[in-house]
């Protein structure tokens, strides 16, 4: 009987490097899915990524496409600047919740509203990873972070922002879906959403955003698999998975 390869490292995943992510951090899973998508759609060499400021700042070390570094939160503006000049090339941003929903709120709302023909991968891990666990706009009520030592209090810090719902209330964007990277059962949906977000761009459909619920085992203070359970039990109830906008 012949042996068939069921899974191997995607070609777009740069060989020989060890990611700097903490063990079990789902950033890696999302990266891998992007690589697989680039391979499957055969678009690696016409794609440029925009690296955010956040744990994924060094992602160009792992994904083998052109990359531009953007200031914190400004990836959608950088992508706009690029895409308007090179409409025949593909561009994606990859942004954390601090990057996209806090400092970068203005840029994402307006890029979505102009329906820039770009792909946004939005990694919502309910915390600031890179800077060591401060509150993010998506931090859940009661969740303890280094700047909400008693848990997030809506009186002082407001309610967690549901970004997909917020952006879906705009008239312009093409596709917005929330998926999860936590559980094996979620991974198919994650992959499908990423693929679709790139396909939309190839078909000039306009702004596509995939919100990926993600873990931060280190700053949540949990083992990776426990973090995945926490995500399922705490994040998904507040951030329901699903398609919020689809102009297909």
């Amino acid at each position, binding site marked *: 009987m012949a042996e068939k390869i069921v899974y191997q490292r995607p070609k777009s995943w740069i060989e020989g490097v060890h990611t*700097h992510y*903490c*063990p079990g951090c789902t950033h890696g899973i999302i990266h891998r899915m992007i690589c697989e998508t680039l391979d499957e759609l055969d678009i690696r060499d016409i794609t440029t990524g925009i690296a955010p400021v956040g744990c994924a*700042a*060094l992602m160009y070390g792992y994904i083998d496409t052109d990359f531009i570094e953007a200031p914190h939160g400004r990836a959608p503006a950088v992508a706009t600047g690029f895409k308007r000049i090179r409409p025949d090339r593909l561009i994606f941003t990859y942004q954390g919740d601090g990057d996209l929903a806090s400092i970068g709120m203005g840029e994402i709302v307006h890029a979505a509203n102009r329906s820039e023909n770009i792909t946004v991968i939005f990694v919502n891990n309910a915390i600031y990873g*890179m800077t060591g666990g401060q509150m993010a706009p998506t931090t859940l009520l009661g969740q303890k972070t280094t700047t909400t030592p008693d848990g997030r209090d809506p009186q002082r810090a407001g309610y967690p922002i549901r970004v997909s719902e917020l952006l879906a209330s705009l008239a312009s964007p093409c596709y917005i879906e929330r998926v999860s990277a936590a559980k094996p059962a979620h991974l198919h949906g994650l992959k499908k959403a990423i693929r679709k977000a790139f396909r939309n761009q190839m078909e000039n459909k306009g702004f596509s955003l995939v919100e990926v619920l993600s873990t931060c085992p*280190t700053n949540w203070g949990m083992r990776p698999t426990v973090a995945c359970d926490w995500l399922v039990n705490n994040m998904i109830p507040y951030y329901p998975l699903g398609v919020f906008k689809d102009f297909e």
Partner: protein
Amino acid sequence: MVLGQLVAYGAMKEGKFVTWLPSYGPEMRGGTANCGVTVSSRPIGSPFVASADVVVALNQPSLDKYEASVKTGGFLIYNSDMAKYTPTRDDIRVIPVNASQIAGNIGNEKAVNVILLGVVIAISDLISDDTAREIIKQKLGSRKPEFLESNMKAYEEGRKIGLSV
């Protein structure tokens, strides 16, 4: 990092000048996060440690990176359960410590630091044995009293290794 802070607290307690300076990176785990501690009887100028009397390496990357910064005649102490060392220098004294294993035996996996502290205090004159014990009580005892006993035990084990060098 904690190890360095304990030494720093001890030195201050003994009335010495001390600085503790971390070198931080984006790698939250498994990287070469480290710190430099300077203890002196006069005010300290540079808190950067270019060459050190004692280097303690908890893992392989740190060991590889900081081996070179041990002064001639200085000590290189490392956790032999987490890193392997093939000697490249003969002008330094190398002390492998199977710290993870000892910590496991004691039943406090996080005591690796304290074991290595024991070694450091035993081989150097940074701070006295008494001060070290008091600092452990003060700094570790107050936060997690349930671990105080195992921490003291870890210190003893480390000290034994250090004295036996």
